[in-house]
Structures are given as structure tokens and as C-alpha cells.
């Protein structure tokens, strides 16, 4: 059917009407095979979108397979349990025990997250629930900027400020002699990097809680804090947890800033005031060097695979917790 415009008064024919009529005329001409084309486009786009979406998991799989293949020489000669539970690291003798690195990674990450989560979560809640517009206008861009600072700058800042603080302040306080390059220093620097991320995400998440819920809490005679804690945070809990997972994942993988302050000594850090050697630092420090040592390349690939496995396992677990929380929050 043709689309036509009838004008009762031809003199009222403005430029827009003429342009509109022309458009309609074009649509008219396309008419007969238009439906077919639209359907074809629809199908094509479905395939294209699906292809792009599948790239992600395939990429992950490709990385894992690539690492596993390269790590194979080491895995096939040394039992997996030995690799994971031994802390003997003597590449020249062909002894590769990763325990010190695993402990180092976990310790730095835990310190960072334990420090960053309370600060981040509370700041995020404050920004969303209690701060006025002026504070928000100031804080939100500052958080964005903090998140955008390259990690090497945090590393320098750690060397200049946190290392001396640990050496001259914290370590003597506990009666320990220290160079300042410790697992604690790494954790502190890392927590400062993770904190803005958690704050931002928590702020966004808490903001999405409908105002009606706040009103409901307040109208029952709850104070602002009671409403925040028992209603708003409860509703936002899955999101807050997700923010912490994000922080955790960031902390696990952060390399440069940690490497600069953590000491990089292969030993199990029995307390946080000792130097440690997290896995990302191991890989970044050594890859491309000493490749003449047999198995060294393979050992570093195994380290990468290990890091990937730790992060994936943690994320999968965190997701399960998230699912359970979501069910409870609704």
C-alpha cells in the first residue's frame, strides 16, 4: 500500500511536509522486497552478535590451553603436588617449588582486600546515602581519576612513602628489623589501588536501591543508619559483594606496583613484615631472562597457569555466593 499525504490546503505545504513526503515515497519504492531484507538482516545480525559473544570464552580457553601446553614439560617431569607444596626454588638444579609464590600472592592480596574492603564499602555507602550533592560532585571525579592512575605511579609512591613508613615506623613498632620492602608494604600499596574501585562500584550499586525502600524504612521509625544497614545495604548486598570480588580480582593480578615494593625474595613470608614474592612479580621479573636454564620457561608458564587457576577458582566461588545472595535479597 502506498503512503500518501493529502493536504486540505496546498498553500500550507511547508518545507518539512515536502521532505516528509519524499521520505515516504522512498519507503514506498523499497516496499516489495523490504520484508525479506529485514528478515535477512535480522538473521545476519543474530549470527554476527553470537560470534562476537563467543569470542570471549574462546579467548579464555585459548589462553589456558596455550599456557598448559607450554607448562607441559615441567608438569610431565615433576608431580603436580610437588610443584604446589614444595618451597624449594632452585632453577639451576631443576627444582621448582611454587609454594612460596602462592603464599606470597595470597598474603599480599588478603592484606590489600582486608584493608580496602571496609574503607571502600563504607565510603561507597557514605557517598550514596549521606553525602550531599557538593561532596559527590567532588568525590566521584576524584575516584575516577584515582582509578585511572597508572600502577607504576602507585609503585613509585609506595617506594617513596610506604617503604620508609614500614622500615622506620611499623616494623620498629613491632620490634622487627626490616628493609621496608615487605609483603605488608605490597598489601598497603595494593589496598590504596583497590579502594577507589570498590568505593565506586559500591556507590553505584547502593544508588540503584529504590527510594521507596528508604522511605519504607524511615516511615517505620528507623533512623537513617538503621535504614541504611538493615534495608538499603541488605538489598544491595549482592552488588557490594560483587564490588569486593572485583577488588579481589584486581589485587590478585596487579603486578608492577607490588613488584616494586614487595622485596621479591623467594621465601615463605611467615609474617607480613618479611619480604615475599607474588606470582605476577615472578613472571614479570624473570620472563625473557635466564631462558637458557632448562625448564625455566616452562616453570614460568606454569606460574601463569597457576595464577589463572587461582583467579578463576576464586571468581567461580564468588559467583556462587553471589547467586545465593541474590536469591535472599529478593
Amino acid at each position, binding site marked *: 500500500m502506498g503512503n500518501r499525504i493529502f493536504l486540505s490546503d496546498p498553500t500550507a505545504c511547508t518545507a518539512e511536509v515536502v521532505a516528509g513526503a519524499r521520505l515516504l515515497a522512498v519507503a514506498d519504492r523499497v516496499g516489495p522486497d523490504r520484508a525479506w531484507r529485514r528478515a535477512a538482516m535480522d538473521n545476519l545480525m543474530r549470527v554476527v552478535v553470537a560470534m562476537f559473544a563467543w569470542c570471549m570464552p574462546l579467548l579464555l580457553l585459548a589462553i589456558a590451553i596455550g599456557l598448559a601446553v607450554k607448562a607441559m614439560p615441567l608438569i610431565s617431569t615433576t608431580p603436580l603436588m610437588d610443584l604446589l607444596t614444595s618451597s624449594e626454588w632452585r632453577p639451576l638444579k631443576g627444582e621448582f617449588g611454587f609454594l612460596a609464590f602462592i603464599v606470597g600472592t595470597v598474603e599480599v592480596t588478603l592484606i590489600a582486600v582486608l584493608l580496602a574492603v571496609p574503607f571502600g564499602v563504607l565510603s561507597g555507602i557514605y557517598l550514596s546515602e549521606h553525602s550531599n550533592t557538593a561532596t559527590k560532585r567532588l568525590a566521584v571525579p576524584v575516584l575516577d581519576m584515582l582509578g585511572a592512575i597508572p600502577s607504576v605511579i602507585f609503585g613509585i609512591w609506595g617506594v617513596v612513602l610506604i617503604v620508609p613508613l614500614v622500615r622506620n615506623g611499623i616494623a620498629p613498632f613491632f620490634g622487627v628489623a626490616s628493609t621496608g620492602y615487605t609483603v605488608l608494604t605490597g598489601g598497603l600499596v595494593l589496598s590504596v589501588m583497590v579502594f577507589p574501585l570498590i568505593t565506586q562500584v559500591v556507590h553505584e550499586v547502593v544508588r540503584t536501591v529504590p527510594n521507596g525502600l528508604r522511605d*519504607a524504612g524511615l516511615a517505620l521509625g528507623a533512623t537513617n543508619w538503621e535504614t541504611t544497614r*538493615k534495608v538499603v545495604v*541488605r*538489598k544491595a548486598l549482592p552488588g557490594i559483594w560483587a564490588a569486593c570480588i572485583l577488588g579481589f580480582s584486581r589485587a590478585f593480578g596487579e603486578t608492577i606496583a607490588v613488584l616494586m615494593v614487595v622485596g621479591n625474595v623467594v621465601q615463605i613470608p611467615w609474617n607480613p613484615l618479611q619480604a615475599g614474592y607474588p606470582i605476577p612479580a615472578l613472571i614479570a621479573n624473570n620472563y625473557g631472562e635466564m631462558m637458557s636454564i632448562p625448564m625455566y620457561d616452562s616453570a614460568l608458564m606454569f606460574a601463569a597457569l597457576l595464577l589463572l587457576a587461582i583467579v578463576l577458582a576464586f571468581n567461580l566461588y564468588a559467583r556462587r555466593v553471589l547467586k545465593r545472595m541474590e536469591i535472599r*535479597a*529478593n
Partner: protein
Amino acid sequence: MHTPRTTLSVRGLHVNYGDHAVLKDVNVDFPDRRLTAIIGPSGCGKTTLLRTLNRLIDNTEGTRITGEVLLDGQDIYARGADVTGLRRKMGLLSQRPTPLPMSIFDNVAFGMRIHGERPKQQIAERVEYFLRHASLWEEVKERLHQPAGGLSIGQQQRLCLARGLAVGPEVILGDEPTSALDPISTRHIEDKFTELKERYAIIIVTHVLRQARRLADHVVFMYLGEVVEQGPAEQLFNDPQHELTRAYISGSIS
């Protein structure tokens, strides 16, 4: 029951949001144990007036309030007034039901618990009492500990009513409390209101004139932030004194 008679009146109330005057010199007396309907076209300040009554408006940044709201003779905006105590006296039903993110039981128990009273056994008894009171008990008694979000919208609104009644209010505020509900759920809530006004002062905002006619004893008609006319429902609907009221009731403005 011989509770003292609640009196709620608004005197010379102005509310400004930035430069914009939302309420202008509002003076209203809300009769006790009657249902008052606040009617008027959208944007006339009905909801704002309701939110000043329990000071929920405090949490809207940039509002300035002058004038008095007297509850039992006390100005609720006086310096040092007990806001949480005030809100406890004012139950609220909002446009869309707002079940708290917890179980059905905990929703009703929430108010009792924050006000720090009553041992466990008594809480359970009172939860049942108020759920029955809101005609919801039979429908939920098997699943008290399941999330309240799983109830239908109509059930959720009755749950909110039970939750509000459980803290022992004197006044019930409803902000278009049936606008999200289907006709049967609306009937449920309206019947409840008719029953409850024997014991509470009920104030509802509504844009449904038929609902105001069905329920109201007293009507306040607002237009552009001002109270144009108020009085007994019968008089206001059958013999409005003001031109604007007549126009609104006849449907020529909306």
C-alpha cells in the same frame, strides 16, 4: 479501645524546592477517625503535603519548609522534635508496595524489633495478629519465612499495611496506595481503610475521583500548590464552593 484523639493540623505551610514553591500557605485540619482524601491534578503538591506530615521530605535535598505541622498540639518541625518517634506514629503506604528485602515474617517484625521491644514469643504473636488484621494471614501462614518479594503486588501492599500497623501508628498515610493494584486488590485495600478509620486517622492522596467519592469523609482539593477548598466529602462533591473545584470534579480540568 480508648486511645486519645489524634489531632493533626497544618498551619501556614510553605515548601520550596530551590526557587520553586511547591506548597503555598497550606492550612488543613485532618479529622481523627475519618478518612481524608487529598485530590487534585498531578503536580499540585498532594504527595509533597503527605511527605511533610511524617517529615520524609527532610531527606530531599534542597527543600525549605516553613510553617507548622501540629500533631497532638506539638509542632513536628520544632527544633529538637523526635523525628523517628513521629514517623512511628505515621504509617505509610506508598504508590508501589515496598516489601523490605527479607522474609514476610521479618517485614512485619521489622518495626517492633528496631523499637527494641518485646520478647520473641510476643513478636511472633503480634506478627500473626497484624497479618490477620491486614487480611493476609490465611494466604501466607505457610510461607512466613520466604522472601516477601515473592508475594503478588496486592499481597505485598497488604503486607506493607500490616507492617505499618505493627508499630502502632495513630495516622495512616497513603500515597495513591492502590494505583499499582488490580481491581480486586484495590477492593481489599479500600475495604481495609473503611474498617481502619474506626481507629485511625487516614489520609490518602488519590487521583481517582471515584475512589475519593467511595471512601472519603473529608476532602482537600489542591491546585498548583495551594489548597483551594476543603470540607466534608458530601458537601465538596455535591456543592463545591469554588470554581476550580467544580471544574476538577466535573472533569473539565485534570
